[in-house]
């Protein structure tokens, strides 16, 4: 299974008709995923992640471009039972216990995992006898994860899996995903949280406005989009003196200066040490959405907005 291509998306495009005219959700996406990779599809809401995943799975037909999953059409891969999926939306069917529902799903696949093992792995063995309509939001998500896992898939596709989960469920969820992936499966998950991509994927493909704006190891991506800004009023300080450690660029805005930082913590310490008289200090995350847009050519190089301070 080494170095085989599991997913190959080439030139994918998709528009939807809306009352305001056609909306280009995906505008030319190329992604290749090799066996065993854990890839995060990272981007703000509306970036085209779900549409891309729907096309990958054959649920939506692309306007242009090709999709290949495990060397064939998506329908062949899913039809063979090789793909485990947790879609973004969806509830469970009623009137079955959790164990019965997972067993029912397992019966559809040629090589399912042991149901009890899956329940334990996902951490829902304690509620295995409970009816699906009586689960909490987090429990429902975990049961849906169990449905995706029980097929024993070669490719696991998760669309914003942790959205409805509490913190505890999230931890358990990612630990399970890791355990499963360590057995050689390929994983693609969509998220709009940089931290999730950074913590749980080897590689991140960043999407914004229907295009891929970055693709690489998560630590590199994080360095690119994880910029933060410091805004402060520093009387009498020349701009050049503000190019402190951890600062990437400096600009003056009226009374105040804005420091764009690759390492804001370090920059802030240096700032206070060099200019103890600095005041009105505000630290702002770039905002992931804005950071993504920074990466697109449309908006590239423009300044990050920092909330106005009323002094």
């Amino acid at each position, binding site marked *: 299974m080494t170095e085989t291509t599991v997913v190959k998306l080439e030139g994918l495009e998709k528009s939807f008709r809306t009352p305001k005219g056609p909306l280009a959700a995906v505008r030319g996406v190329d992604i290749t995923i090799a066996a065993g990779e854990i890839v995060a599809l990272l981007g703000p809401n509306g970036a085209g992640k779900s549409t891309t995943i729907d096309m990958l799975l054959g649920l939506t037909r692309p306007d242009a471009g090709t999709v290949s999953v495990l060397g064939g059409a998506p329908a062949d891969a899913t039809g063979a039972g090789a793909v485990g999926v947790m879609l973004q939306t*969806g509830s469970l069917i009623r009137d*079955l216990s959790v164990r019965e529902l997972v067993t029912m799903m397992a019966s*559809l696949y040629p090589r399912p995992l042991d149901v009890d093992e899956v329940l334990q792995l996902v951490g829902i063995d304690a509620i295995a006898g409970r009816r699906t309509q009586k689960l909490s939001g987090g429990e429902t998500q975990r049961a849906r994860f169990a449905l995706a896992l029980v097929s024993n898939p070669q490719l696991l596709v998760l669309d914003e899996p942790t959205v409805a989960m509490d913190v505890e469920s999230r931890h358990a969820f990612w630990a399970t995903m890791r355990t499963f992936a360590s057995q050689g499966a390929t994983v693609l998950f969509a998220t709009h949280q940089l931290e999730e991509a950074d913590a749980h994927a080897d590689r991140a493909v960043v999407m914004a406005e229907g295009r891929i704006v970055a693709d690489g190891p998560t630590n590199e991506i994080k360095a690119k989009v994880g910029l933060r800004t410091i805004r402060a009023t520093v009387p009498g300080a020349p701009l050049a003196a503000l190019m402190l450690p951890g600062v990437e660029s400096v600009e003056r805005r009226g009374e105040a200066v804005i420091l764009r930082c690759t390492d804001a913590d370090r920059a802030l310490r240096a700032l206070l040490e060099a200019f103890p008289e600095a005041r009105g200090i505000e630290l702002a995350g770039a905002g992931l959405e804005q950071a993504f847009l920074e990466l697109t050519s449309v908006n590239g190089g423009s300044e990050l907005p920092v909330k106005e301070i009323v002094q």
Partner: protein
Amino acid sequence: MKTSTFIRYELMRNFRNRRFFVFTIGFPLALFLLIAVPNRHEDNLGGSGISAPLYFMVGLAALGTMNAVVGGGARIAFERVTGWTRQLRLTPLRPRAYFGTKVAAAYLSALLTIAVLYAAGIGLGVSLSTGAWLQMTALLLVGLLPFAALGIMLGHLLGVEAVGPTIGGLSGVLGFLGGVWFPLGDGVMRDIAQALPSFWLVQASHVSLGGPGWSTTGWLVVAGWTVLLSLLAVYAYRRDTARA
């Protein structure tokens, strides 16, 4: 892949649903007792040559099974809304097998309705030869085919809120025109009724008079509706899944 397991759980879901019992068994049984007990000594209901208990037994079995089979398919509407059908499309389960499961579960529910109504009918003195019982049951099961297709079609066409009222209204009208409540005399109404599949479901009781139960017209009407509604069901399914 073990489709039998899948069907087994599908059935379990049916039988755990209280509304299923109320509407497909309790409701027709109660109506049968209400209408047949006072008329239990009527041997020739409305000149049909059939006793009241037998006539109403089959009439209400027809109504109950009609509801069970249409309702079984229409459950697809709920599974579309919850995203379950999307999830199933990503499994090795083929659409044909999915519909087959729905129809099989609906038919097993229908058999239960039939058994309960037969037991009640026997309690009121209905007596037929083994051959006649079997023939009547077979006609009921064949007569339900168009309704199975209708259910799948409605499941893909309707929103969840519309399912209940639509099935209620349809089975009310089809049951009434089909002669569930009284034998239809000769006339315009009977001419119209003969073109409906529900009429022939109710006519299954005619096996008690000897002969085949259904005329050639009956077989043609049932076959015609089955083909037509199956095509419409396929169309509704395609339209529904190709939307994206």
